[in-house]
């Protein structure tokens, strides 16, 4: 029905010859993987012959100028921190960017949708969620009182799974799990891309994980403390986050104990809008145990799950989730990976990231998700300056390493360099 609505809208738009604002198609997002390196291959055209004299041309400025303005018009990073634009409309006000009164029928449909979503779906879901949360609180505390360890484990699993199932229903999440034979096993770390706090519920729906994260206050804090009573989770204070060794120690201790559930970690460190995977923090990859990568991909058509934490608080976000049509997502369990000989943590992290990105159809970026809030480090600018200096003075003074990051950019290269002189 949604498709019909969209088709209708597009047809009407075409009929009225209006320029329908078409959002970026996913093809555009695959351009330019090497976003970190502003490639400077074209400045000198075919002049790989070294000049003894440094050569500067006034036209060089065009290159920087053009790249700069291109990034103003569109860049790979800032758009990852806001909800993805949809190709077709899903009758939710929040995802429509070209809001125009197209037809009465569509308005009526939309109105109906609002009624259904807020009048029927939302109350139902809120009730379910409330039940689920209170059940977690009560049951985990109860189980925590039990003396026998095995019984505790057994019941914990049941309790957790049941509660998460309820929570999932409360969001009307339709999840498809792929490759369940690769499900994370005890004594390992499960690594996934992060889009929303709901990721946890989605994954925990299908297995028992230990969670690691910041200890919250309020309702979430209560839930966290209750969960710890019956199964091991790692909650730490913000102040402790800075102490990486402490966290790493707790992690490795947990992982070393083979009876403990796998730990669920989101190495990006922040929510990204599910069109790309950003830099993985290397902390979890330094421990040296088996990593089970998981790719989560949401279909934004029925409801965009991305949590834009700078725009919406948690409660607001949950309400929006519960008043969407549904949350549709796919979860792929990837085969376990181990750090190889001679590979350091960063390379390992990048390898895992690439695997997750490839499976989920996401863009693999090297930018840090922390750029959501922090400024980019000066070191990167200095890198660019260094590259340009190499071009100016040639390779003689810069040592023998040729810049190996030069990859041809088909759509940005100049055809037939017309560098005068």
């Amino acid at each position, binding site marked *: 029905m949604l498709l019909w609505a969209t088709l209708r809208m597009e047809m009407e738009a075409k009929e009225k010859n209006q320029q329908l604002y078409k959002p970026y198609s996913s093809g555009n997002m695959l351009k330019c993987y090497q976003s970190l390196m*502003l490639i400077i291959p074209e400045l000198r055209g075919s002049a790989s012959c070294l000049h003894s004299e440094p050569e*500067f041309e006034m036209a060089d400025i065009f290159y920087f100028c053009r790249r700069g303005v291109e990034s103003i018009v569109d860049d790979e990073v*800032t758009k990852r921190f806001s909800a993805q634009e949809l190709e077709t409309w899903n009758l939710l006000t929040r995802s429509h960017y070209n809001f125009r009164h197209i037809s009465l029928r569509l308005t009526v449909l939309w109105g109906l949708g609002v009624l259904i979503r807020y009048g029927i779906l939302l109350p139902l879901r809120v009730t379910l969620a409330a039940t689920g949360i209170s059940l977690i609180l009560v049951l985990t505390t109860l189980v925590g009182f039990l003396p026998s360890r095995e019984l505790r484990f057994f019941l914990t699993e049941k309790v957790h799974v049941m509660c998460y199932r309820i929570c999932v229903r409360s969001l009307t999440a339709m999840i498809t799990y792929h490759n369940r034979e690769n499900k994370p096993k005890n004594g390992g770390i499960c690594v996934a891309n992060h889009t929303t706090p709901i990721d946890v519920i989605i994954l925990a729906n299908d297995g028992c994980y230990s969670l690691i994260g910041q200890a919250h206050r309020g309702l979430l804090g209560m839930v966290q403390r209750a969960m710890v009573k019956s199964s091991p989770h790692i909650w730490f204070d913000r102040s402790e986050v800075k102490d990486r060794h402490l966290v790493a120690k707790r992690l490795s201790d947990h992982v070393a104990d083979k009876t403990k559930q796998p730990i669920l970690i989101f190495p990006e460190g922040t929510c990204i809008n599910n069109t790309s995977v950003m830099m993985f923090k290397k902390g979890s990859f330094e421990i040296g145990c088996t990593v089970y990568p998981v790719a989560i991909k949401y279909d934004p058509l029925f409801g965009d799950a991305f949590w834009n934490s700078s725009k919406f608080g948690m409660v607001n976000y949950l309400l929006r989730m519960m008043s969407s049509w549904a949350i549709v997502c796919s979860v792929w369990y990837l085969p376990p990976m181990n750090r190889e000989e001679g590979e350091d943590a960063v390379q390992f992290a990048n390898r895992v990231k690439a695997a997750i990105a490839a499976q989920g159809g996401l863009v693999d970026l090297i930018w840090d998700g922390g*750029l959501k809030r922090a400024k*980019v480090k000066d070191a990167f*600018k200095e890198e660019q*300056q260094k590259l340009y200096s190499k071009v100016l003075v040639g390779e003689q003074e810069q040592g023998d390493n040729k810049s190996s990051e030069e990859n041809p950019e088909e759509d940005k290269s100049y055809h037939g360099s017309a560098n005068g002189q």
Partner: protein
Amino acid sequence: MGSRASTLLREEEIEEIKKETGFSHSQITRLYSRFTSLDKGENGTLSREDFQRIPELAINPLGDRIINAFFPEGEDQVNFRGFMRTLAHFRPIEDNEKNKNAAASEPLNSRTNKLLFAFRLYDLDRDDKISRDELLQVLRMMVGVNISDEQLGSIADRTIQEADTNGDNSISFNEFIKVLEKVDVEQKMSIRFLH
């Protein structure tokens, strides 16, 4: 239902911008969406910090000069019109584009205007001349700390020597045009705007 986006950008405004810059209707709407996404303060204008938040621009050695080009003399905010006017310089030149009204001034994306944009990137004090000092400063921005002062100085001297025809030891706009007459400015200073 009504239009949410267009209460902020009216049809007449779109038409005006179309006339002034030559962008198509859909390009303007798309760029407006980009403008609003950059405008974190949601006050309809962009400040320098809004631009600097773009990581790819922040690591561009000439990022600050480019950002500066968007702001008129002495101002700290740029509105959507100004934003589009500056971006218009980078619109590709179409072969079939003729001046619709002969009386109107040159289109913003003409070769001369593209060159003027680049010239202004060098001309730090906006006195219509690129002095040796200004050239040195811009060069320093581009190379960082990787080239010595002497070498940079000799590069600057050589460049001015080659370009300067009237002997005033600085490069005027006309001299600048002359130096770049063989360069395919139209292509190098154009970017593809998606429809």
